[in-house]
């Protein structure tokens, strides 16, 4: 049976449509994906993301130990800051993409993808070789994401903590609706917003308070469907779709979170070699210029034969065009290049475009 978050009953009671995702029974939509998408872009939406996992590093050498497993560089951020990056294999393949919250140099929380909870924990624990205490605290945390331009208005009414001055990718411990939380100015939607980590037993109280107070801002409860279309409009990668153990962060267009100049980290040698040799393929953003929707797994065609594949695709609710991400040969990766996508036997024309597809104003 699929796992349930502490908010499962709330979702079912509020009429959400539930689907299994990464082994979890999750809401895919409430009122409808387009409506929820629009709510987050223009107002505020609330997501249950308790399926995400949390792995914690502790000890005098916690930071340097974790930094050795991480493609970005934790020495470049201060306590109270978060950083996005990849965990890589020696081959350079991506074990997961994660956000690491630096509570202190001796205490760091790694937020991992739901499907990778156990894999990441074992990978990090084994890689740490006893140099730091590594704990899988995934079951100890619920996670709510309040996202959208009016998120800060809702939060201001529920928390005495000064959140107006909390900058993007910063976090602190505070209280929201009387619930002790870690409050982070992070998200997966491309809008301003907050992610709240709280004890599972408090999740329902927090959810209900946010929904009640958010009513005046026309808050919408949101499911995974909107979460996916929102993230794709801003070209955030989805692990398992856009990358996996067989792709490197360089191929996935994440060179900006690969710090090849820092001290050794797992995968560095392979990534350096790949950079010198040149990439075999690149993840690009594209827009269809023919009708249709490109979906995960569809072939990219160059001169009639398969040269790559689509990893994500949807009709952008905000831009009203068909967008997607695809791996293509470097020769087809420049902005403005055209190729075709095989949509169930029909070659639909596509053009490489700049990402993010959408930027908030």
């Amino acid at each position, binding site marked *: 049976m699929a796992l349930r978050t502490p908010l499962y009953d709330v979702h079912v009671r509020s009429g959400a*449509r539930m689907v299994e995702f990464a082994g979890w029974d999750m809401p*895919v*939509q409430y009122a*409808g*994906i*387009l*409506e929820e998408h629009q709510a987050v872009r223009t107002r505020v939406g609330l997501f249950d993301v308790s399926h995400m996992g949390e792995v914690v590093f502790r000890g005098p050498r916690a930071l340097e130990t974790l930094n050795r497993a991480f493609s970005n560089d934790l020495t470049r951020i201060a306590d109270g800051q978060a950083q996005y990056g990849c965990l890589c294999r020696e081959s350079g393949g991506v074990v997961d993409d994660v956000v690491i919250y630096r509570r202190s140099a001796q205490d760091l929380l790694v937020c991992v993808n739901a499907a990778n909870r156990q894999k990441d924990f074992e990978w990090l624990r084994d890689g740490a070789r006893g140099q730091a205490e590594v704990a899988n605290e995934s079951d100890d945390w619920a996670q709510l994401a309040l996202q959208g331009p009016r998120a800060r208005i809702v939060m201001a009414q529920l928390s005495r903590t000064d959140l107006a001055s909390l900058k993007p990718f910063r976090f602190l411990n505070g209280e929201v609706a009387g619930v002790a939380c870690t409050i982070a100015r992070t998200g997966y939607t491309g809008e301003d917003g907050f992610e709240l980590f709280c004890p599972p037993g408090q999740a329902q109280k927090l959810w209900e308070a946010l929904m009640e107070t958010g009513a005046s801002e026309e808050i919408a409860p949101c499911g995974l*469907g909107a979460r996916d*279309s929102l993230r794709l409009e801003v070209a955030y990668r989805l692990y398992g779709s856009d990358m996996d153990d067989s792709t490197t962060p360089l191929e996935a267009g994440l060179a900006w979170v690969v710090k090849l100049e820092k001290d050794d980290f797992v995968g560095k040698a392979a990534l350096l070699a790949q950079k010198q040799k040149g990439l075999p393929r690149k993840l690009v953003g594209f827009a269809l210029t023919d*009708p*249709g*929707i490109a*979906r995960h797994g569809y072939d990219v065609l160059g001169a009639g034969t398969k040269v790559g594949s689509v990893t994500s695709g*949807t*009709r952008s*609710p905000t831009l009203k065009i*068909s967008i997607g991400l695809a791996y293509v040969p470097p020769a087809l990766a420049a902005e403005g290049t055209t190729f075709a996508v095989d949509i*169930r036997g029909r070659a639909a024309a596509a053009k490489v475009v700049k990402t993010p597809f959408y930027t908030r104003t």
Partner: protein
Amino acid sequence: MNFPEDLKYTREHEWARVKGKRVVVGITEFAQDQLGDIVYVELPSVGDEVKKGEAFGVVESTKAVSDLFAPVSGKVVEVNDPLSDAPETINEDPYEEGWMIAVEASDLKDLDDLLGAKDYAKFVEEEQE
């Protein structure tokens, strides 16, 4: 959920409205609800032949791609072109404004194994369990 009495239904959740040899085809309220927000529709052109039980087009929602199956064989005599710019009409009004194609049936016996409204409602109920 609303399944009008005057329509016939396929087990793939299309409906057929029969007037003489002219059969208008669309998808049911249940189908549009299961699909979620419909964002794209691909339909044949006037003059194309469709074959009973075979795909004549595609609807795509934000979540999924779904084939449309013809309830009868015949020639397409009319297509609801406005749907290509406003596919959400299928969600909003699946039985009227959201119709998809009209077919001139080559053999009305094709309709014999379609379900009536009551049987279709029962079929949907069973499928949901």
